[in-house]
Every structure is written in C-alpha cells, then in structure tokens.
C-alpha cells in the first residue's frame, strides 16, 4: 500500500535542493489530511513549511450561507439533503444537526442521487439539495438537475454554493505575492478542470504549481517537483498525478457544469467576496434554483465572522491551527467552533486528529 523505499529515497533527495525557507501551500483538504495522517512534515527539512489552503469545501462556506440553509430547513414541508460534513457546522443559530432535533427534516447523504429518488417518491415534500464543494461536486449537482428534468420532477431544487478553485488561488497571490512560493494543486478538482485555468498562476504570478495525487509518495513527489522548479527558477503548471489528471480535464463533466451553472461572484469564509469564484444555477433553470424558489435571502450577505475563530487566517495559510486560542481547548471535533474543525478535511480537524509533536508545541503537555 505504501511504498516505503520510494518515500525514503525521495525524502533524501529533497534537502539541499534549494535554499530555504520555502513555503508551499497544499490547496486541497485531502492533502492536508494525509500530510497530517502520515506525518509527512517530519520527512521534510525544517526550512520547508507546508501551509493549508482554501480547499476544504465546508471550511470555506460562509457562516451566513450556513444560516441561509438553516432558514430554508425551517420552512415547513422542506426536506434538506446535505453531505455529512456540513451537518455539524455551527451557524449563528446552531447547526443543522440541532435543527433536526427541533423538528426540521435534514438528511445526511453519501450518495446525492438519493435526494432525487426521495423527491420522486415524496411529491408532497419540497426537496432541496445543498450544493457545496468545488468543480468536483458541481457536475454531480448538474447531473441531478438533468435527471430531475428528464423525470419531470417538480419538487426538487439545488441551493448552490459551489465554488471554483483557480480564482481563489489568484486572489491569494494577488493579496500577497511573497507569502507562498509554490502550490500543490488538488488532484480531484483538476481531474475535471485540467490545467488551463491554473496557467495565470505560473504566467502572471510566477508560481510553480504541481497537480498532485493523494498518496504519501504523490505528495512527496509533488513537493519535489515544486522545489525543482524553484531551483531552476522556472514556473509552470505540472501534473504529478498523471494517473488521474490530463491537460484537458474531463470535458463531459465541464459540459454538464456549463449547461446548468454560470460563473458568479461569491463569498468565501475568511477571504471575502472573490469575483467569478462561484457557480450559480443559470437563469433559464431557475425552477431548480432554491435561491429563487424560496428566496431565503440575498445571495451574498456577509456577516461578522465568529470573533475568536481563526479559520479565515488558517484558510489563507497565515496561521497554523494550534495558533488559534480555542484550538483543542474550547474547539474540538465534538464541539466545533469553526468549520475547519468540523470537516474531516479541515486543517484544524487534521491537526487535532493526527497530532504531530514535532509541529505543535502544545501536544506533549499531558
């Protein structure tokens, strides 16, 4: 399962590659989790700092969006289907889990199509699917709408908070182009979008970017490829995860996205509104758009973030989870304050679940 020899070979090649410090952002939550789970930072020279990025879908969902979902779930006759991660994220009035206890009908699903079948069989209910995630989950929502149209189901809609990865990365470098030296780009998202949308990262902002798989050996190879670009003083978008990604991405999935979605501005937790970083349901398919169906509020409303939660800084990679005052004391997976602690892919949850005593100085105090 894990190729230990390949790993130690790579780990030996890495030091001495460039002059340190180097700061590399792993964009994707699955990377964050596996880096923590396998203790990959222990294999790297201290001069290489891995920081987590905005690639955990739940973590970047605005608190006001969570509130919106809750408003909707409170409407009589509505059944909400959601991915598990979202279920426990606290909004300003508690979580969806809490709402369920109060009589709302919120269902956690692993297979989203379930929501469509439920709608078909329960026509008296208004079924809403909460569309969160990136270019990976948007095609799923598109396929659902497609199916609903074919089956002429009338009681189904999607509340789309889908987001796009490339614009948020551009925003990070636009804000501070000196902070991050290279990007480990997400494997799954790139399976859909290919390499094109990342090009400005290399061409305009001079950042190496390597689309990387999720196995420990992939991650080390990705890091090595970034260091190689830095040492050659070149910057380009490369694919390490060749078994999952090609340059063109998945045209069929993109077709589905563009059939039902259009690009919109949207707000990211901790980062604010980023133009063209969201996906809204096209106007001609408004029947399936829960925003219009229920008009539960304005699409972009920004409320003050939870004052003490540092998720925003963590999503930009400027703070490590254990630097948050609440980490591990008040905020834990069974009592999460911010979304980064709820999702298994959030950096706070990864640091909590897979503690690394070489990274987090607070761990060994028993």
């Amino acid at each position, binding site marked *: 399962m894990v190729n230990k020899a390949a790993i130690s070979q790579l780990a030996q090649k890495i030091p001495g590659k460039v002059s340190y410090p180097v700061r590399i952002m792993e964009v994707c939550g*699955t990377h964050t*989790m596996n880096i923590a789970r396998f*203790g990959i930072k222990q294999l790297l020279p201290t001069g290489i700092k891995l920081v987590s990025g905005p690639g955990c879908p739940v973590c970047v969902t605005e608190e006001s969006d969570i509130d919106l979902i809750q408003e909707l779930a409170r409407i009589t006759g509505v059944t909400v289907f959601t991915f*598990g*991660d979202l279920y426990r994220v606290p909004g300003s009035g508690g979580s969806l889990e809490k709402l369920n206890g109060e009589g709302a009908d919120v269902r956690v699903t692993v*297979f989203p199509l379930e929501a469509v079948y439920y709608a078909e069989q329960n026509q008296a209910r208004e079924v809403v699917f909460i569309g969160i*995630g990136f270019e990976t989950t948007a095609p799923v929502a598109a396929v659902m709408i497609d199916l609903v149209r074919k089956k002429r189901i009338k009681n189904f809609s999607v509340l789309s908070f889908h987001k796009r990865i490339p614009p948020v990365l551009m925003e990070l470098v636009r804000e501070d182009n000196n902070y991050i030296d290279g990007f480990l780009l997400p494997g799954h998202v790139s399976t859909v979008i290919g390499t094109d949308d990342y090009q400005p990262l290399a061409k305009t902002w001079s950042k190496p970017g390597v689309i990387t798989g999720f196995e*420990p050996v992939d991650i080390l190879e990705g890091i090595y490829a970034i260091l190689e670009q830095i040492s050659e003083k070149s910057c380009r978008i490369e694919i390490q995860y060749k078994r999952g990604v090609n340059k063109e991405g998945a045209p069929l999935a993109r077709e589905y996205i563009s059939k039902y979605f259009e690009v919109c501005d949207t707000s990211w937790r901790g980062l604010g509104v980023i133009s063209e970083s969201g996906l809204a349901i096209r106007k001609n398919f408004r029947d399936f758009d829960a925003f219009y169906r229920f008009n539960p509020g304005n699409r972009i409303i920004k409320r003050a973030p939870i004052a003490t939660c540092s998720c925003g800084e963590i999503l930009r990679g400027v703070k490590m989870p254990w630097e948050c005052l609440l980490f591990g004391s008040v905020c834990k997976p069974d009592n999460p304050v911010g979304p980064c602690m709820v999702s298994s*892919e959030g950096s706070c949850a990864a640091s909590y679940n897979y*503690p690394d005593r070489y990274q987090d100085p607070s761990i060994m105090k028993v």
Partner: protein
Amino acid sequence: MTQQLVEELFIKYFHNSILDSGLDSAMLSLKAGKWAMTTDSFVVKPVFFPGGDIGKLSVCGTINDLAVMGATPLYLTCSFIIEEGFDIGDLEIIVQSMNSTARKDGLTIVAGDTKVVERGYCDGVYITTTGLGIVPNGINYSPSAMQVEDRVIITAPPGAHGLSVFAARNNLGVEPPPQSDCASLFSLIEPLNSLEVRCMRDPTRGGLAAVLNELALKGRKGIKIDESLIPIDSTVANLMELLGLEPYQLANEGAAVIIVSKKDAERALEKLRGHPLGRKASIIGEITAEIPGQVLMITYLGTERIMQMPSGVIIPRIC
C-alpha cells in the same frame, strides 16, 4: 403486539429450570469466589446487519465484557423495549439468535422483561442485558498492572462491525456488504488466563483508538504501536480509504486488545491464532515509560503521530 406474545417467545426459546419456575426473581445458588457483573444497553440501527442482529450483539457484548475481565460468563438477564408495531417475526429471529448465542457459551438466561411503548417512543427495539460470571482465582486484570515492555496484541483487524453498520445505515450499496465481526470472545480469550496477561479490552465504541487511549490513561503509561503491524481487513481498508477515514476509530464486536507480558506474548499469540476468531492476531506494539497517558503510532512511513482519543463522530469527506 401484546406483552403476552413476547413473553411466550421468551419461554419458548430461553426456557430453563430457573426461568421456568416463573418467580418474581431468578433464584441462583452461587459458589464462593469473585464474581463479575456487567450491564449494557443495545440500540443498533439497523436492527439486522450483515453478520448479526441486535439479539446476537446484545448477548455477545455482555459476554465479551465479562470475558475480558477473565470471567466465565454464566447467567444473563435481558430486558426489551419494543416499539408498538414491531414485527413479531423479526422479534422471534432476534430472540432465537440471543438464545443460540447464549447457549453456545453455556450461559443461562435467567430473567427477562418487556415493555411495549407507543410508536415513535423508541426506534424498533432496544435490548439491555446484564451478565454475571465467575472469575477464576488469581485473575486480577487491570490497566494499572501494565508494565513497561509489555506487549500489545489485537486479535482481529479493526473496524469490521463499525463499518458494517455504517455502510448499512448510509446505504453505501457496497457488494458484498461489509460483514460485522460480532462474536463471543469467551472461547478465544479464556485460554489466555493461564498466561501473564495484565488486562484486556474489547474495542467497541471508538474502536482501537479509544481502547488504547483509555488503557494509557488508566495505566499511566505510554503505548507505542506500529501501524504496519496492525492487521488489515481489505474490505474495511478499501472502503475506509474511499471515505477518507481510518479504521482505528471504528468498533469491533468480536476482537480484543490484550496487554500481556513480554515473556508470554508469543505464547499468547500462538493460542489466539489457533482459534478461528484469532487467525489474524498480531503484536502491534508495547507499553513504554515515555509519553505517559498517550498513544504514539509509528506510521507506515516511519514517521510518528499521536493517536488521538476519537471524538465519536464519523464523517466521510465530500469529494
């Protein structure tokens, strides 16, 4: 469904001289010595899962709690809370499987009770079982007996029961569906009573991670384990990988974690592997003086991380 119907079922299957006497309490004549007693309630959903059902689970769970204390389980009582309208045929299957599970290990079910509650006041059926067992002389299992260099054994791959129930509950639609390991551990671990065993636990809720953390805390020692030595069930491993989770937090219902002296570790392993439930038993680590109260895991990569006490919620990733 009437109370009477249920009671008839009990008598039909559980019958024995103590129960049949129909007194208000079971009358037991116990010999002198140390006795172990435990009680637990079972609320599994779904009630029937691949590899078992709530009846088997409620008997095995209590047998296992006694067995890991070194006790020989002898008597059991059970109490049912049943939702109005619960299928009587299903109930019969449950009672049957309790009966056959108990008899296999020579247990007598000496008392039982049922309450039928209105629809919506309980979810199908809940079962509480209480078990009584005798502890052989000289057996005194406790985490505080753990000593540095003792070995840590797990008798089966972690996570089979937890995954089976998780898959059934979330309609994962995996074929064939992952099987629970629900089983009585008595015949597996009873032979270890002759060895230098310090303590045993069955990793139910919270799985291996919870049990190791509890032992480390209660025994005030550190536990160091090597991930590559933990036995793997490939169905569990593949599915967990897909969900972005590790099996260490998932429950077993047919496995034990055993702390045994360094000297007797290999003999214990041999005995375990000779039993069908212990084929994949493995020494996964040892007790250390370092990091008291914590569990350190050497990962597949040779790096290390603290194995955290699980938070109790299992959430698969989105994409």
